[in-house]
């Protein structure tokens, strides 16, 4: 029966997808939303039963590969971690399904969209419930495919199609690391099933890989490779370039995939593999640094973005940095806690932005918004809830999950932890700034859009506002409700076997009794950030323009996302095409063909011509040839005998 959770969305996708033309919009919506609701109910019931009765089990559905020592099966591993993730995914996905009924109302091929959404949910659930690395990889790539389909859903838009391809390719670069990680695991552990991997870790600890000569400790290598996969999926610094472009897709897609579920798959994988990561110190250090760097980088860029959805996208990237940071400090509970809360308030923000854009009939540029406070009051209110949760104001969920991470950074007492602590705090300040900037620019002051759009502005219909309200409750409530279970002293029992923390990694435990100033510093910075944001955009509206002119190069630098995108395009895309053309014209045409077949046949043809001229037609040439032949053979015989 538990297998129904992933399979229900799959059936929905198949039913709707295969009969896409004949099935009407309404029926498609009904089928997908119904199947999702049923799946969510089962997932919640499962989550409750796992947390309470602590029933950890693995259900094998069907054998996939069995080749001598290499045994991999389609299986579901049910434990707290996967139950929680399944619950979150199902919840958010159902809400998005319902929301898109309203948002995508007039779309030409709505059934196709709903089918893709359900397909995505199936792949995500398969990933989350995976019992071995291979099935996780199946879900991993499936989710990448679904995001490619959904981003490129409006394929008549050239930019959407390109963004889809970009997303898939960058994910694929991440998967390159993941696959190599899988191969390395199999080479070392001779199995891909998690339980067996964790059991055999002690044997493998001492072994090493020799790649191109220099030696690298096996477990660290595997961790780094798996982390590369996580980087690709969770858009960490270096492989984050696809996230902003992914905003080309419809907003429900951004909400579901690029906020709540897919991007967190990387974090989930790291937590799932905690049993392995705990044994590699330098891998954890690298993860922490990268997480912190991403958090700061994304926050700085978000401050200068003008597109509403891009701001939220960068904020997601920044929050992901925090989660990865938490994993690096082996505070897996905090990471999962932040993941859950972030899923709620980020989905809320996205959907609210979606209804805003829906209201402005597709306008996404904040400079053309403003003055909507009166017209769409409910969205405005919900927007406030989202912004405050994001910034980390106490009663809202953001505060609990983000601050525990910052405290854990401090109490880890390592240089890396300290570095992370500083960056995290800077990030908090910037997060507060850009969230308030976003709020003010889109809702306050006078409307900056033309009359025609004004007539269409309307409050979100109920089918969109109900999911928003539910998410708002989640954003508010999830913080203090789940604090005890996820990170509090009850977390040991709560997580059970699914998260493994080395005994000397006590960052999370000490976090509760961190010094007072460490606890209050993030709150202070958040309030400061909000104030600064209001100062710049609400009161002295000309200040940002002057600041931008004053720090002209810095402003350009941030607008261009630190020129990373341009760098990649130059470094990889252009050089790949140039090398390809060189290899094709130069390689195939000129060298291999010229020296190979064509060259050989040309020489043969030329020789043929030469020999033909040898046949001069004069008898004395022929006689001369005969005589020389005889003389040569004779000489050969004579010399042999001397």
């Amino acid at each position: 029966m538990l297998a129904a959770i992933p399979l229900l969305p799959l059936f929905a996708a198949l039913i709707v997808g295969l009969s896409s033309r004949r099935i009407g919009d309404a029926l498609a919506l009904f089928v997908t939303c119904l199947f999702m609701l049923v799946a969510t109910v089962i997932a919640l019931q499962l989550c409750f039963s796992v947390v309470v009765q602590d029933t950890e089990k693995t259900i094998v559905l069907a054998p996939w590969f069995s080749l001598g020592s290499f045994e991999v099966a389609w299986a579901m591993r049910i434990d707290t971690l996967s139950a929680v993730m399944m619950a979150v995914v199902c919840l958010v996905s159902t809400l998005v399904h319902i929301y898109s009924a309203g948002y995508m109302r007039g779309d030409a091929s709505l059934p196709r969209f709903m089918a893709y959404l359900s397909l995505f949910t199936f792949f995500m659930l398969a990933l989350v419930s995976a019992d071995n690395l291979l099935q996780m990889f199946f879900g991993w790539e499936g989710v990448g495919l679904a995001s490619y389909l959904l981003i490129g859903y409006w394929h008549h838009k050239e930019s959407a199609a390109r963004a889809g391809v970009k997303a898939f390719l960058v994910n694929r670069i991440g998967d390159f690391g993941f696959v190599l990680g899988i191969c390395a695991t199999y080479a070392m552990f001779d199995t891909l099933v998690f339980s067996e991997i964790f059991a055999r870790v002690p044997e493998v600890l001492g072994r090493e890989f020799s790649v191109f000569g220099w030696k690298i400790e096996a477990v660290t290598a595997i961790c780094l490779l798996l982390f590369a996969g996580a980087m690709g999926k969770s858009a960490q610094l270096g492989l984050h370039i696809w996230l902003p472009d992914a905003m080309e897709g419809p907003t429900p897609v951004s909400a579901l995939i690029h906020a709540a579920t897919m991007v967190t798959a990387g974090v989930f994988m790291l937590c799932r593999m905690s049993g392995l990561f705990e044994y590699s110190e330098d891998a954890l250090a690298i993860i922490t640094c990268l997480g912190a760097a991403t958090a700061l980088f994304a926050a700085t860029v978000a401050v200068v973005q003008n597109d509403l959805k891009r701001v939220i996208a960068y904020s997601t990237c920044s929050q992901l940095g925090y989660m990865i940071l938490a994993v690096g400090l082996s505070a897996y509970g905090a990471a999962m806690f932040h993941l859950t809360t972030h899923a709620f308030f980020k989905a809320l923000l996205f959907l609210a932005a979606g209804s805003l854009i829906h209201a402005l009939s597709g306008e996404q540029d904040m400079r053309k918004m403003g003055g909507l406070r009166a017209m769409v009051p409910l969205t405005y209110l919900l927007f406030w809830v989202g912004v405050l949760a994001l910034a980390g104001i106490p009663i809202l969920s953001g505060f609990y999950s983000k601050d525990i991470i910052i405290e854990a950074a401090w109490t880890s007492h390592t240089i890396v932890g300290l570095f992370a602590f500083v960056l995290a705090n800077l990030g908090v300040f910037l997060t507060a700034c850009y969230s308030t900037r976003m709020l003010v620019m889109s809702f306050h002051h006078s409307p900056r859009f033309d009359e025609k759009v004004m007539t269409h502005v309307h409050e979100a219909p109920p089918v969109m506002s109900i999911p928003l309200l539910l998410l708002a409750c989640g954003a508010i409530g999830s913080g203090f409700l789940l604090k005890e279970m996820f990170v509090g002293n009850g977390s040991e029992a709560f997580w059970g076997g699914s998260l493994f923390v080395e005994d000397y990694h006590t960052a999370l435990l000490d976090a509760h009794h961190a010094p007072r100033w460490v606890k209050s510093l993030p709150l202070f910075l958040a309030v400061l950030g909000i104030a600064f944001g209001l100062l710049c955009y609400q009161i002295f509206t000309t200040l940002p323009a002057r600041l931008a002119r004053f720090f002209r190069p810095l402003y350009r630098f941030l607008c261009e996302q630190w020129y990373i995108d341009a760098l990649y395009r130059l470094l990889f895309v252009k050089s790949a095409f140039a090398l390809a053309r060189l290899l094709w014209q130069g390689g195939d045409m000129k060298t291999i063909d010229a020296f190979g077949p064509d060259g050989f046949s040309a020489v043969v043809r030329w020789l043929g011509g030469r020999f033909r001229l040898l046949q001069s037609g004069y008898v004395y040439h022929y006689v001369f040839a005969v005589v020389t032949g005889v003389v040569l053979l004779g000489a050969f015989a004579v010399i042999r005998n001397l």
Partner: protein
Amino acid sequence: MSEVLAALWFSLGVELVLACATLLLLLLGLLLPERNSARLVCYLSILLLVALAALLLWSRQDWRFSNESFSSEPAVTAVASLIDRHFRLDAFALFGKVLILLTTACVLVIGQVFVRHEAVSKSLYRFEYVIVVLLATLGMCLMVSAQSLLALYVGLELQSLALYICAAFQRDNLRSSEAGLKYFMLGALSSALLLFGCSLLYGSVGAIDFASISSASLSGESSLMLQVGMVLTLSAIAFKISAVPFHMWTPDVYEGAPSSTVAFLATAAKVAALALLMRLLVEAFLPLSEAWQPILALLALASMLLGALATLPQSNLKRFVAYSAITHIGILLIGFATATPEGMRAVLFYLSIYMTMTLGLFAVLLAMRNAGQPSERLYDLSGLSHTDPKAALALSVLMFSMAGLPPFAGFFAKFYIFLEALRSDLAWLALCGVVASVVSAFYYIRIVKVMYFDEPQEQVTLRGRSNRWILYGAAVAVVVLTLSPSWLLQQSEQAVRVLFAL
């Protein structure tokens, strides 16, 4: 009385019957009226040849053939001693003679349609032509069963003279007379070389029959004169089979001479020369094998490469056949260079298959008419698959087999040659053989391309029903030989075993 006859038959029977029949036909030709004398003489001679071949094959089973124990009557021993010094009919000679007789019969059959064409019939369509061909066949049969240098020389002379005459037979055509003249001059040179070689051999050995030469070269270190004599003799025969340094005459003579003669030259003459070479190498010079093996290897290498390369630019079909024949001779010489019984068996196997293929090719060449006129241009075949699908299919089967591609007998021929080359570690020669066969595969497949991929030429037709039957027969033979090549292998096996006296 019957004993003497049997003794006669089992030594030179075929040649005697052939000689007498030729003389009778000559007389008959004179007496018959002008118009139909040529046709009648030709049919009679074809009948004669086939009958002789059948008689030979039948006489195989006769016990006397195998153990040669004749009764001891004085008359029989006289006859036996008289002939046995110079000629012997053993399994090898029988294999050679049957092959020669059948090929000549086929050549005469396919030649008829060409000879009767009005463009050439005035000079070619005469009974003397058939008589000269028969005398050439007689010469060849003598060569094949020669046991002494003198017999070899006389047989070779008889065959060569007849071929010079055949080549120049078309009196009113300059190209034919030039071909004849060139063939004569170079042929005479080669006979002179042969003679001088034989004189040196006679000088060093003191006798002219192969057995004593072989025993002389066995005893003690063989003298230089013997080796130089051998070299000269071998180069004379290399001229006859047109191996490379001595091949210069082949393209010009093949292009100039009338097509029916070229068919005869390319098939029967080659068989006789190769049989002679094998008999000489094995019966006379086998102890000297480490002297002539490198020579033959060099000839093989040169022939294969030059033959393969020079055939590429050819567009005249007869010149094409000449050069491709040189390539095939190169591959055959690999078989000779192995100097082992299996190698020689492979040569005989290859030779018989090569003959069938060449006969099929000439059947088409002689039947080609471009707007009524006999044509030799290779590109006249273009689009044959549209105008004459069955003939096109048969010819492409032959071409694939010539190129040595697997589903056809040509492959097995090359298979055995390369197998024996590898067995007697001539791997480098086999490698050159591979390169040569790839290049040769190109120009054979080009013919198939011309027939199947190019646009058809309306005015090109294949006339001559008998040519068509020979073509289909050759194509079927090539396919059948793939399915069951073992009987031909056994025949060559026995022929070679006798030669090596195993």
